[in-house]
């Protein structure tokens, strides 16, 4: 036997049997190791004034990604802490620092000691806030790009092209439209932005195909928007200028002012809970619809959790995280991963023979300016 050290050799493509229903599993074993990793990360972050966070994030991703197995093969995360750290340093020196100096300078001059309020500087300050929103959108896209580019499955890499500034411009246009329509156009914005991301996402050489529409999203979204009014009409009577509240908490108080105060607080709390549930319902509908309209080659996606299941996941994770003072956070991660594996189904021929490595290089240096910036 001769051992070569010059490479892996070249192996051609051969046929593989079609698989119609694909298996997605999430491995929840080994919680102890993950908890230990989390605690060590916290200790290291404290010791390094949080600079270690880039490495901590990487170690967590490296530990979590392979727990998700698709057709028996785990996902892999190949990003490094150093890459994200250097990306952050670049962003800090080239954008955040100059931006911080500029906005400080502008803000300190809005109220001029001699001429009073300065419209020019107030306008510049407003523009600098918009600048942050623009940078944030661009950074979110870059973070998404980095995560996908560093995700492997069976040695095949994910990739995202498209320009972060285009995504940020699109986001800006969408925010503006949502703003002038009093929030009504948000489902349209959500679909458009996801469309841009998925239109530029590939796995290997295979493009994802997303036929996003807002169909089926308006009703749950309007329900969320109108929820405060619904709660108000349900509990408050307005009769000829007299406002009365239809329900009463049984407080041990004969003071009518206190009773009205607590009833108002009760309505606000009920309103907030109902709005949160309505928004959760919209989000679930959004992701269900989005998954059903996504294809990858001949493979189709379906995501079918019920609102009760999602609610259970959120409340459970919230309690686990906060009651344990973030110590048991890894359990919340595992619950999320398991939930996704349980409710996301992928069917249809993936044609693995045709799923080949993309030709372009996705090394960190190939991603250009800010390529490895990750804010997640």
């Amino acid at each position, binding site marked *: *036997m*001769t*051992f*070569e*050290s*010059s*490479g*892996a*050799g*070249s*192996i051609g*493509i*051969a046929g*593989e049997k079609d698989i119609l229903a694909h298996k997605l599993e999430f*491995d929840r074993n*080994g919680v102890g190791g993950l908890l230990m990793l989390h605690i*060590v990360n916290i200790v*290291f972050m*404290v*010791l*390094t*004034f*949080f*600079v*270690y*966070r880039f*490495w901590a994030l990487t*170690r967590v991703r*490296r530990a979590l*990604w*392979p*727990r998700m*197995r698709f057709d028996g*093969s*785990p996902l*892999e*995360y190949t990003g490094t*802490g150093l890459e994200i750290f250097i990306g*952050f*340093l670049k962003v*800090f020196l080239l954008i*955040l*620092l100059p931006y*911080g*100096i500029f906005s*400080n300078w502008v803000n300190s001059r809005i109220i001029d*000691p001699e001429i009073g309020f300065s419209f020019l500087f107030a306008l510049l300050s407003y523009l600098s806030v918009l600048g942050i929103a623009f940078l944030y959108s661009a950074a979110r896209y870059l973070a998404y790009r980095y995560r996908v580019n560093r995700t*492997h499955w*069976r*040695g*095949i*890499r994910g990739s995202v092209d498209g320009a972060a500034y285009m995504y940020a411009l699109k986001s800006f246009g969408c925010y503006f439209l949502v703003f002038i329509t009093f929030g009504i156009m948000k489902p349209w914005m959500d679909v458009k932005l996801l469309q841009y991301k998925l239109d530029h996402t590939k796995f*290997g050489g295979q493009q994802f195909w997303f036929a996003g529409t807002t169909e089926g999203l308006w009703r749950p979204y309007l329900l969320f928007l109108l929820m405060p009014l619904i709660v108000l009409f349900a509990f408050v009577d307005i009769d000829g200028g007299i406002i009365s509240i239809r329900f009463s908490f049984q407080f041990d108080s004969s003071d009518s002012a206190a009773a009205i105060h607590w009833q108002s607080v009760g309505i606000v709390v009920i309103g907030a809970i109902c709005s949160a549930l309505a928004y959760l319902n919209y989000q679930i509908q959004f992701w269900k619809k989005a998954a059903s309209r996504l294809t990858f080659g001949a493979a189709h996606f379906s995501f079918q959790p019920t609102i009760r299941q999602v609610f259970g996941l959120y409340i459970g994770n919230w309690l686990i995280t906060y009651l344990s003072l973030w110590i048991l956070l890894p359990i919340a991660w595992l619950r999320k991963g398991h939930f996704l594996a349980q409710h996301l189904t992928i069917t249809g021929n*993936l044609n*693995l*023979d*045709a*799923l*080949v*490595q993309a030709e372009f290089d996705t090394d960190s240096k190939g991603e250009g300016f800010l390529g490895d910036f990750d804010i997640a």
Partner: protein
Amino acid sequence: MSSHFFDGSSAKRYEITPEVWQEGISFSTERGDLAWRYEDLIRLWDYRPSDHLAFTHRKHQDSRLIIEEPELVKAIGQHAPDLLNRKKEGLRAARVAGVLAVGVITVVAAIYFLVPPITDTLARIVPWSFEVEERPELAALEKFLGKRCTAGRPNEILKSLTDQLLSVSDFPHPILIDVLDNKMSNAFALPGGRIVVMRGLIRNARSPNELSAVLAHEIGHVVNRDLTERWMRNSAIGAIATLLFGTGPTSLGDTLFQNSLSLSFSRSDEEAADRYSVHLLNQLDLDPSGGAAFFERLSRSGGLGETLPDYLNTHPESEGRADYFRERGTGTKQALSPADWLILKQICVKSS
């Protein structure tokens, strides 16, 4: 359970029967034979399940070789124990954290020791006209702190006392001094040479030299360009905090870092202003016991400043400051005649 291989060019899974040798691992696929040396293998430690071995090749890092059979895993362990022992990998994380900790401590130490001399030098280089442009108008301060006390003769006496102190300093620019009608026993310096004294300070002062010591202290801040320096320092600390803690919501670490550094720098500014104050009083041969008495009273009056430990305070401990005035002061005279002092005390009394 079977070992398999992905060639990195497609997602096709190749079932293989690897053979473990002294030098490496060999295996055959339908397209040919491959032999990988141990020194070329990179173990993918996070692969799951963790009792399976996943490798990639140093020169072809998209390929994946997965060994699942326990006897093969054991054999590889015998020939290349490093490929099974994760301790080294674990130590790498500790080493990264160690290097970062040392790096961060070096940066913080550098800030602590280098920022004050650098900003002090820079602040003195900034032309005085720049600072004058930043000087707040008295009208803006009056809105928050109370009306300016306008009594004519007392203001003349205060101005002449300030000029007397300025005459022995080498500061070439004018200083504006005003009293605001506020019961607080306080005084402060603002950018551009504006000193504001509260009515309460003059009212509570028991001798003209107490007031002189405080005025000389505030003149010290102006002469040392402390206001410009503070702005520079806080900007530098803010930038470094962003570098360390990122741009997310303010964290406890971020707050502690920024505040403890700026408090520490602020204490050293106050000490320098005290030194300057004693210097001016000595030049004019003024009795320093006024300054000592002022800080002693401040110490006795308690308040938050006196109950907090030193490192949480913007000012040094009052008793220590009183001692400093007493020990370093050499003068014997009073700054004002008793008659002038009584007139000055009436600065906020409106003439009918």
